[in-house]
């Protein structure tokens, strides 16, 4: 038969039509509203809003801490995925299931739980502050012993480790919500890895570290980067789990989504929209990057299997 295979299945016009209408009504038209509203502003006005010092400070907090959290998650997410795939230990099934907890636990619950945990009288906050205080006292004493000035010694004695209501608290929340992204993108790749690759490397005399560095890491890299990007994208927009623990001090621990909330509370809809437009543009860029990374990952998997 030379005729092209004809698709006999029904329902294409109906399902595609429904998909497009629903997508437009729920997602596309509402998102377009942001850009149309933002277009009411002149370029200078728009720029004045999105580059106001307090807003710029919030970008630094949001982006800097999201990058840092995604980086920390890449390291520990890889370790966790490695443990789940390669090692046997008691409670492994439970750990595997609970890795997804941040996907399932409502962000407000995460927020109040972390705040309670890391507050000055919390299970982790209290020992951390005690540890910080003794480090501070030791540094201050050391400084005086070496003949340093009394003022600097006093400043050193002030040193403390506070997590709740500081940028460190924001970092903790962002680590929590980003972890499963890395584990769940790396884990399937590790599972599918051909053991012959490592055998080949070992029989050619590679040491373990060399095998990991030159054989495994290049194969895992696209998945790791995808996990990093997914964790970062989620962290930048995160609101619920962060606001409770952030302390929300202007210029220090305010995140960008909170700036939108402030503008809305003041009924400054135009201002809120301008910042939202910036965040949306970033989302689109990240979505593009993630798509490219995912295509790279699936190409790499096919190669690894061959």
């Amino acid at each position: 038969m030379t005729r092209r295979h004809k698709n006999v299945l029904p329902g294409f016009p109906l399902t595609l039509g429904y998909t497009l209408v629903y997508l437009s009504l729920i997602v596309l038209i509402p998102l377009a509203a942001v850009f149309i509203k933002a277009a009411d502003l002149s370029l200078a006005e728009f720029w004045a809003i999105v580059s106001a010092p307090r807003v710029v400070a919030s970008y630094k907090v949001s982006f800097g801490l999201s990058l840092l959290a995604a980086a920390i998650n890449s390291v520990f997410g890889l370790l966790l995925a490695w443990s789940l795939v390669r090692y046997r230990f008691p409670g492994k099934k439970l750990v595997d299931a609970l890795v997804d907890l941040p996907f399932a636990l409502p962000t407000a619950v995460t927020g109040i739980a972390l705040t309670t945990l890391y507050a000055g009288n919390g299970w982790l906050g209290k020992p951390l502050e005690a540890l910080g205080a003794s480090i501070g006292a030791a540094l201050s004493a050391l400084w005086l012993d070496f003949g340093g000035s009394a003022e600097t010694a006093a400043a050193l004695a002030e040193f403390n480790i506070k997590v709740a209501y500081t940028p460190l608290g924001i970092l903790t929340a962002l680590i929590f919500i980003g972890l499963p992204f890395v584990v769940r993108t790396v884990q399937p790749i590790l599972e599918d890895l051909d053991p012959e690759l490592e055998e080949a490397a070992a029989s050619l005399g590679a040491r373990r570290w060399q095998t990991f560095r030159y054989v495994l890491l290049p194969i895992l890299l696209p998945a790791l980067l995808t996990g990093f990007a997914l964790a970062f994208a989620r962290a930048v927009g995160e609101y619920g789990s962060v606001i409770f623990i952030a302390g929300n001090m202007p210029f220090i621990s305010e995140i960008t989504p909170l700036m939108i909330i402030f503008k809305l509370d003041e009924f400054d809809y135009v201002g809120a929209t301008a910042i939202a437009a910036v965040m949306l543009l970033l989302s689109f860029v990240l979505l593009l990057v993630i798509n490219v990374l995912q295509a790279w990952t699936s190409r790499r998997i096919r190669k690894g299997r061959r």
Partner: protein
Amino acid sequence: MKINPAARARAISSLAPGELKRALAAVPWIKCLVLGLALGFFAVFLLLPLIVVFAEAFRKGLDAYWAAISEPDARAAVWLTLTTVAIALPLNLVFGVAAAWCIAKFEFRGKQLLVTLIDLPFSVSPVVAGLVFVLLFSTQHGWFAPWLQAWDIKIIFAAPGIVLATIFVTFPFVARELIPLMQAQGREEEEAAIVLGARGWQTFWRITLPNVKWGLLYGIILCNARAMGEFGAVSVVSGHIRGQTNTMPLQVEILYNEYSFSAAFAVASLLALLALVTLAVKSWVEWKARQALDFNDDKQDIAP
């Protein structure tokens, strides 16, 4: 003749077979280090926050716990949350199935773009998701303000806004579970059914649905968990009117900010329980799906 790389490597290897085995075996101290770091990180960052929720909820005893979750405002919050899910979930379910059908079973231009656009709500900040509906439906400033005022309809700071925001943030869940699954299954079985004279609906109910039921269930429970737990988007559109427009997560926030910590954690523990149930169902579904896969592999082995 093709020689596989491992066999070739073994052939030119300087190592004896015993040495190779030793070179590949796990080194105890590395295993301990990796496991220790990974599980320590897991315990501090994932396990402790979960434990703290229940510890705080029951700190003042069972009676206080019961009082906290049965007071009228909490009950109203539970009711609003359930109503919201009851509307949002079926809508996104129908959409997910329709989208998966046209994307997985047919070829058309712009398919990849469509898949990307369906994922879009995942990469939008929840606060922005709430804001877009305020821009459209605010009674004073929204696009539809004159019309809403004329008909005296309230969407923002009322239940419809909460439902809309929830539909937006849970939009991709069912579709993104079903699309890869249905793509992997191809369309031969459905085509055979149609050629043999089955109707479209019959084919869907008898062939497609049984094939994707576990993936579908997984999408539904994830969608349900997110719909019940959404905070940011709902917070923007709700207006926080006690007993009227507070969902469970918003009730948690209000109680917490009023320093009623035990009550806040009591309501939070209900949501945490929901999360645990979600994870349990998810594990069960994955186990079932793997079983089905093994079963199919067995069938293929038996076939000549």
